[in-house]
């Protein structure tokens, strides 16, 4: 009763207060070893196999811990922002453990969302086998906030039947890719030379990086946009060159996202596409399942590989969790070697441990080009909360679309993008 009275008084107090509402996230410091462990994982297009693996892990975990019940909820990836933000604003609704995309990490950490696991990782022997560049995507300012669960790397899918018929070889450079794509569309007007999209950021990035540019650079604590440097402009121009009527017409391609370009390839509408190892199931389910192969996306020089974006998902422990130790133990189980291997078997996701990667590469030639790409070096988007905003405002896709539709030239579009990015970095 008293509690209610206090709560009611608190409402009145906030009502007259003249400042915006804020959550109180002072840590109560509890660390229980029993009860319900709440876990959020992402819902995949076909979620069954993932659930099977997770259920095994839960059974094993519950058998090893008395009085612990693990409760998993699968969230649609699209609605994740409101759920995570809700959980940060209301710790009572927050889970203990969650899967999240590595590009979201900086924003989550700025909201005190996830617990610093650096110390725990030091104590965990298996952590030494995590691929260092992948582990870097779980770090902000030197602190680690998650265990990489799987990675996603993109490479070049192409149609073996079309290439054979036209007597073509997989392109050895990005410039050659453009001419090859043009030649294919000239011979087969119903087909996109390569399916690319105005909204496909992770296909644009390798072009920028391969040309020696980057979208932004860090100087101490400050970030500044570099998309308007000559190298980055050359990369963006080269990518936008693909969005032309003689390769991938802007009327069809300017609005495409990554998954849509892969869908176009899988449906036989494109001779090439930039797709991830995680897209394998979608392509195998399509019309071209027996007629495709994958090579690393080439760089600007023959024999080089364009740096790929190091996508992937992490498993972390919520900062507000009252079962931190238990949560960490569950993360090391589900994110550990055994279950990463099981996830690979069920979902085809690429493990984050070097030894597990080597192990599966032996029996799965499909993965070779992806592993080759990873080993050639991967890059990442700016690890700052401002990235959430830049991404939400579609700054870079807008620049590509402006160029592709011919409304702006590369210099104008990239200068505008750089200005917007700098505004976001400055937090204004």
């Amino acid at each position, binding site marked *: 009763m008293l509690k209610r009275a206090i709560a009611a008084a608190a*409402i009145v107090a*906030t009502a007259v207060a003249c400042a915006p509402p804020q959550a109180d996230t002072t840590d109560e410091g509890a660390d229980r070893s029993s009860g319900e462990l*709440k876990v959020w994982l992402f819902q995949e297009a076909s979620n069954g196999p993932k659930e099977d693996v997770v259920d095994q892990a839960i059974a094993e975990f519950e058998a090893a811990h008395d009085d612990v019940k693990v409760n998993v909820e699968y969230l649609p990836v699209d609605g994740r922002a409101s*759920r995570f933000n*809700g959980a940060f604003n209301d710790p009572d*609704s927050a889970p203990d453990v969650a899967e999240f995309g590595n590009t979201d990490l900086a924003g989550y950490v700025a909201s005190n969302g996830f617990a610093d696991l650096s110390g725990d990782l030091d104590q965990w022997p298996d952590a030494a086998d995590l691929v260092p560049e992948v582990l870097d995507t779980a770090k902000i300012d030197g602190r680690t906030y998650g265990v990489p669960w799987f990675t996603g790397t993109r490479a070049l899918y192409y149609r073996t039947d079309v290439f054979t018929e036209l007597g073509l070889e997989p392109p050895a450079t990005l410039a050659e890719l453009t001419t090859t794509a043009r030649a294919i569309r000239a011979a087969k007007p119903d087909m996109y030379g390569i399916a690319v999209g105005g909204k496909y950021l992770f296909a644009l990035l390798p072009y920028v990086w391969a040309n020696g540019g980057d979208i932004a650079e860090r100087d101490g604590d400050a970030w500044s946009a570099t998309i308007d440097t000559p190298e980055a402009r050359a990369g963006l121009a080269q990518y936008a060159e693909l969005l032309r009527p003689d390769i991938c017409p802007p009327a069809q391609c300017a609005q495409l996202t990554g998954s849509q370009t892969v869908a176009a390839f899988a449906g036989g509408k494109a001779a090439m596409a930039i797709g991830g190892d995680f897209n394998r199931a979608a392509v195998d389910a399509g019309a071209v399942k027996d007629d495709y192969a994958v090579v690393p996306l080439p760089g600007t020089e023959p024999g080089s590989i364009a740096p790929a974006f190091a996508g992937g998902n992490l498993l972390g422990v919520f900062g507000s969790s009252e079962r931190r130790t238990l949560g960490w133990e569950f993360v090391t189980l589900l994110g550990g070697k055994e279950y990463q291997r099981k996830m690979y078997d069920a979902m085809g996701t690429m493990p984050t441990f070097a030894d597990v990667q080597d192990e599966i590469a032996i029996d799965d030639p499909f993965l070779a080009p992806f592993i080759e790409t990873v080993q050639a070096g991967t890059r990442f988007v700016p690890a700052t909360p401002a990235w959430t905003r830049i991404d939400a405002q579609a700054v870079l896709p807008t620049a590509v679309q402006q160029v592709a539709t011919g409304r702006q030239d590369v210099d104008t579009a990239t200068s505008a993008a750089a200005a917007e990015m700098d505004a976001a970095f400055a937090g204004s």
Partner: protein
Amino acid sequence: MRKRAADLACVLIALVVAFPLYWMVLSALKPAGEIQAADPRPWTLAPTLDSFRRVLAVEDFGLYFLNSLVVAVAVVALSLVASFLAAVALTRFRFRGRTVLLVMLLVAQMVPVEALTIPLFFLVRSFGDVVPAVGLNELGSLVLVHLAFSLPFAIWMLRGFVAAVPDDLEEAAALDGASRFRFTWQVLFPLVAPGLVAASVVSFIHAWNDFLFAKTFLISGTDNRTLPLGLLVFFKPEEQDWGAIMAGATLMTVPVLVFFVAVQRHLVSGLGGAVKG
């Protein structure tokens, strides 16, 4: 002769207006191969429930459906009572500040709801500390906010109906010794029932279609998810699964449609009542 032309025009326009709905149901029933065909046909010879099966395979679909229904019905019932009383006060009583109140009701509809989600989130969170049933993660929180968002329009709509009831009736009732309260409930309420139906339609749609607040307030706990949240998985054009999208759209539309057709007669006569003022 002219009447026949009007009849013909009515039927033709009805067909055009209904076509998107027909196309939605048809596409939901087409087998996958026909949906992706380059030459879509306005019929199918091999109707299948495959698309519906994919959508209905969503875990706890029935529960989500029920949750949505509970929220919508609660909003309709509560908004009827509250808006009826308010409409009576605003039309049959004279008091200072009446016009101001009317204008406020209009202003209330102008605020973009997306902008209010953050303040409402914290408000609902505080409610939860006092009355758990209307806190975050509870259906009660959705009922409350939809009530607030549907009331202004419902009151606006009802004012006309209440005003249409002749004053003589009230005077006669007063002479018979009926109290104002009894008159309101026993005479006025049944008389404006058609108007109430018309107003409830809009409240129902409001509550039934909501994604925004369901997404914002229902953070943890799958048990209280509403139907749109469950269907969100399918509304992704990226997957190009038009069959499932159309099946999901059909499942969302049908309950509202049933509700509309059920109250259709009252809707038209109800709005008619609003004019006789």
